[in-house]
């Protein structure tokens, strides 16, 4: 395909300006890539890239700073919401967001996310739930599905000992401080579009309403699930969405309107 061919055409899909044109380190088919794009797209939409401070968490998304053209603080595992709180209080006029995995946010960082949401910190949280610890090699996460085999639940998650997967969005939606909370997926083009809207909404919640916005994105980890990307993607609809229903669980602005 030569470039000349397309110049006369209208480009209807392109790389967002906030997303650097580099190859990511993500495994083939890993949906962190899609989610990164959607975050970049939201920043483009509000034209905030030049102001934004991102907080990277520890997990496969730790290299955030290589992919977004924004300022980034690398937080200790689980503590991104606290780090973001410190940053936001210093720069109340600048958009601040965290990007966290399910091990990071729903296990070690439980306390930080709950209290950050409860304080109603006006930040945006992107929560990538791939039902496992991707970076460390596929251990059980708080979101691992019942009977799911992982390297630390080799016989499948045993709900009677390990408990049930936690639905963080519902939990956080229950807090007064949470202004917007939604769960989305990126397994189909339609879901990707919805996810993009939710992420934009979560930024808008921060920018317009000075509220805490949260989006959980169901995602794949083909590598640690031991599946090819296509099968992994299919699992999202087959196994994840039934347990983690999609939807907007709180929208204070809408309620207020």
């Amino acid at each position, binding site marked *: 395909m030569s470039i000349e061919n397309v110049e006369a*055409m209208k480009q209807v*899909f392109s790389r967002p300006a906030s997303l650097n044109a580099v190859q990511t380190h993500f495994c*083939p088919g890993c949906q962190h890539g899609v989610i990164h794009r959607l975050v970049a797209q939201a920043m483009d939409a509000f034209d905030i890239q030049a102001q934004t401070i991102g907080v990277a968490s520890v997990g496969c998304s730790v290299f955030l700073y290589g992919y977004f053209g924004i300022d980034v603080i690398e937080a200790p595992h689980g503590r991104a919401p606290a780090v973001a709180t410190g940053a936001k209080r210093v720069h109340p006029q600048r958009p601040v967001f965290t990007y966290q995995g399910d091990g990071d946010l729903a296990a070690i960082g439980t306390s930080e996310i709950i209290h950050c949401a409860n304080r109603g910190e006006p930040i945006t949280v992107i929560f990538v739930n791939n039902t496992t610890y991707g970076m460390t090699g596929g251990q059980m996460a708080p979101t691992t599905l019942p009977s799911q085999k992982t390297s630390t639940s080799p016989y499948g998650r045993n709900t009677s000992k390990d408990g049930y997967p936690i639905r963080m969005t519902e939990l956080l939606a229950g807090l007064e401080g949470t202004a917007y909370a939604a769960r989305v997926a990126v397994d189909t083009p339609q879901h*990707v579009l919805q996810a993009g809207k939710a992420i934009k909404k979560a930024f808008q919640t921060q920018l317009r309403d000075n509220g805490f916005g949260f989006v959980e994105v169901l995602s794949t980890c083909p590598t640690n699930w031991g599946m090819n990307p*296509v099968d992994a993607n299919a699992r999202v609809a087959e196994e994840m969405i039934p347990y983690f229903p999609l939807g907007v669980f709180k929208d204070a602005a809408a309620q207020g309107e």
Partner: protein
Amino acid sequence: MANRIVISEQLCKGCGLCVVACPHNLIEMSTELNKHGFFPAVITPDAMLSCTGCTFCAQVCPDVAIEVFRER
């Protein structure tokens, strides 16, 4: 139709998600490795003729390897 997609051979990691996402089944996987060692997605000029420019393939691509163009 004159809609087109451009798949970056260098960015593509050969995950195949676009193949599944295309409602018209226009994309296929190459049998040749790219320099990163992946078999990238490709679309034949023939198949391209049926592209509706719906962007579905691009929406699901984790590597933002696809650009989509529509007739003006």
